[in-house]
């Protein structure tokens, strides 16, 4: 089922697809960033594809990616490659998962986004569910979505500085809004020594 979807996708948009793979039964297609909107529109409107149900939208930060125990088979990121600054392996991957309620197949779209230009086209116009999920990805990773109707933070407050799910944001770095009068506003030192 996933192979048929990937074959049809490659047949229709061969130049826009950088790489396809199947991991544990999930179909994954790597799309070039500037063609993402066209491919997504085709996936929604084509009757054989009919991906009308959005599942999730998120992002992966490959800053600390040093994989071990990589199973054999073609990989986008070879086992020995960590994230480098040369552009060969961009830092972020924007991930979308789609589902078809009529044909019951699923697809994951991925789009590589470099750190210095952390933008991606917004798919909120096609699937309204992605409006909030793209806001969440912006809040957590800092990916700016072009043509998003309302791009602002959703989980965290406006005064928060930084993007916490990036690998270089320490887990316990708090930015308090209010404290009791006799307590300092400085973030609390964690019992583990503050290295996180």
């Amino acid at each position, binding site marked *: 089922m996933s192979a048929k979807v990937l074959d049809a996708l490659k047949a229709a948009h061969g130049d826009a697809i950088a790489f396809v793979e199947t991991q544990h039964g999930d179909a994954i297609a790597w799309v070039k960033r500037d063609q993402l909107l066209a491919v997504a529109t085709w996936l929604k409107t084509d009757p054989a594809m009919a991906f009308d149900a959005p599942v999730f939208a998120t992002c992966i930060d490959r800053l600390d990616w040093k994989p071990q125990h990589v199973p054999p088979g073609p990989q986008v990121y070879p086992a020995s490659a960590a994230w480098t600054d040369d552009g060969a392996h961009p830092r972020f991957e924007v991930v979308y998962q789609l589902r078809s309620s009529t044909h019951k197949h699923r697809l994951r779209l991925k789009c590589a986004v470099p750190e210095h230009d952390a933008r991606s086209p917004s798919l909120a116009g096609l699937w309204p569910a992605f409006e909030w999920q793209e806001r969440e990805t912006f809040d957590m990773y800092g990916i700016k979505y072009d043509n998003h109707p309302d791009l602002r933070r959703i*989980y965290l407050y406006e005064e928060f500085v930084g993007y916490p799910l990036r690998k270089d944001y320490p887990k316990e770095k708090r930015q*308090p*809004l209010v404290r*009791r009068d006799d307590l300092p506003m400085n973030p609390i030192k964690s019992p583990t020594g503050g290295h996180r």
Partner: protein
Amino acid sequence: MGVELTTTRLEDAAKWAKQSAVERATNWGRKFSLFTYPFVTACCGMEFMSVAGPKYDIARFGAEFPRFSPRQSDLLMIVGTITEKQGPALKRVFDQMAEPKWVIAFGVCASTGGFYQNYHAMPGADQVIPVDVYIPGCPPRPEQVLDALIMLMDRIQAGRGHSQLRLKREQLITEAAQDEQG
């Protein structure tokens, strides 16, 4: 006047916060008619519902009907994790309550943050407001909650809640100033 911590130890309070018979009677009435404001955020809310439910009946202690306005309640139960985003709302709700008021931190997230030590979960609600009784547990069993309620009621009777001692101190200061003048 800012929100201050007072020492509520029995030895210290016994030295200066003596109660008259009228005060003892008032505190007796207060402890058996607590109006709770359940500031429910997370999973502990389920155990709060169980405590309010028919099996672990909190109505036996008089604290049965929640008042969802801080102006009408005197026991603020902080049930669940407090996050940094929620901090200003919590402080505002506490400030809006009339004295005397008591606070129970229900659950380990409200007491110390629990196992959520990260950039958004506040390490305990007492970062923002003074807490009278802490209930550990994730979530605490309803029997623990009732035990904490009895502990709080003993404190109310002895006049040793944070806000009661604060009022007492202010009262003593005004009396001393009046004695000086008159």
